[in-house]
């Protein structure tokens, strides 16, 4: 089994080592891709987000993290509130591997 494991690992290592070759063989290098959000088809909050995306990447990144965390927390508390009313014991469990 150890011999088989060694062979499998060697195979993965060989494939992994060849990856940069695949990438380089792909052709000419491209320049940095610049994406611009289309603000013409959206309005309200979506327009604000699209504008921030186009003008201030740092502010956009901060907004992305803050809004994701806040939305996750709101949904988490809401679901917790609902689940607590199911009558299940949601504070203890047994650890069984088999």
């Amino acid at each position, binding site marked *: *089994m150890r011999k088989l494991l060694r062979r499998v690992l060697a195979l993965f290592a060989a494939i992994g080592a060849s990856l940069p070759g695949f990438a380089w063989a792909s052709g000419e*290098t491209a320049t940095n891709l610049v*994406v611009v959000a289309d603000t013409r088809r959206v309005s309200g909050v979506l327009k604000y987000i699209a504008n921030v995306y186009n003008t201030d990447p740092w502010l956009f990144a901060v907004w*992305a*993290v803050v809004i994701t965390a806040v*939305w996750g927390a709101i949904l*988490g508390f*809401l679901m917790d509130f609902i689940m607590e009313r199911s009558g299940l014991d949601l504070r*203890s469990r047994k650890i069984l591997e*088999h």
Partner: protein
Amino acid sequence: MDWLYMYMPIAGVNIFWPGLVLIGFSVGTIGGFFGMGGAWMVTPGLNILGFPMAFAIGTDMAHIAGKSMISTMRHAKFGNVDYKLGFIMVIGTFIGIEVGAQLVMYLERLGRIDAVVRYVYVIFLALIAFMVFYDYAKAVQKKKAGAVEGERGTEGITWYKAFHKLNIPPMVHFKTAGFTCSAWLPSGVSFLTGVLAGFLGIGGGLFRMPALVYLIGCPTHIAVGTDLFEVMISGLYGAFTFSLKGRIELVAVFVMLTGAAIGAQIGTVATKYAKGYGIRIAFGIAVICCMISIILKQFGFSNSSAALILTTIGLMCVYISAIMFKGAAAELREKKAGKQAGHPLS
């Protein structure tokens, strides 16, 4: 049927939004059960729905951060999260994710990111699947031979025992997980899994969950909870770094999170009624299906790939939901019977 499509201003594509809710729900269920973000399903899923790969990766990162937050809150109440272990792993994860994300940007400039990401995915999925089934086969073999090891029962792979012998200070005791090891072990493992996470645009749970079990030595349930805590933090950091690089679609994140909030409850509560090896085997099967779907896509069989991944996600959701609802119904029946007998169970 235009109302079923939502315009994504940053990626510039019209997306079938019920597909986003369904992906969120499914990944919430599966991720909460296996202890990971579930990005290995989301990234190809978003790609199938029409997002370019780089956008699929960034969007995925933010979504798994929010979803893991919901699952972690639930796991924490069960006592499945070892915060000390989680915090120690955070630094290695952060550095690793940044290294991986830089690698993605480099490959994007080379113009072959889609193919390379898929190759790396396949290699590591194969490795994980092999490890899971090898562990199970070995555990069954040992059990048949009558070997019982320690309080966890018969185990297949016990590499963590060798790693625990590494006596490099500082040595740390992890109370919730129930073992002592060098702080360098979780730090090193988290760095390596972080590099893969940043590169593949996933929270890293796919690699960290088995690593926590096989290399660090966590019981499966603690690995699931602690890993989700890690995925939450690494996902938030990943969301920040990918937002800075302009490869994220926030609108899609919120739509997916709404579905994920419900799924996460089902998946997390299901772990209460599942056994450790049951979780591991289901995990291994899902990994194999995911690997085959990526291979199919690489060779141009996109429809077959999409069908396989959607079928896998669907069946896994049914399996996990069945465990949860069956377990919950039994618990409620037991409580009711206890009350009727005059001995209410707490």
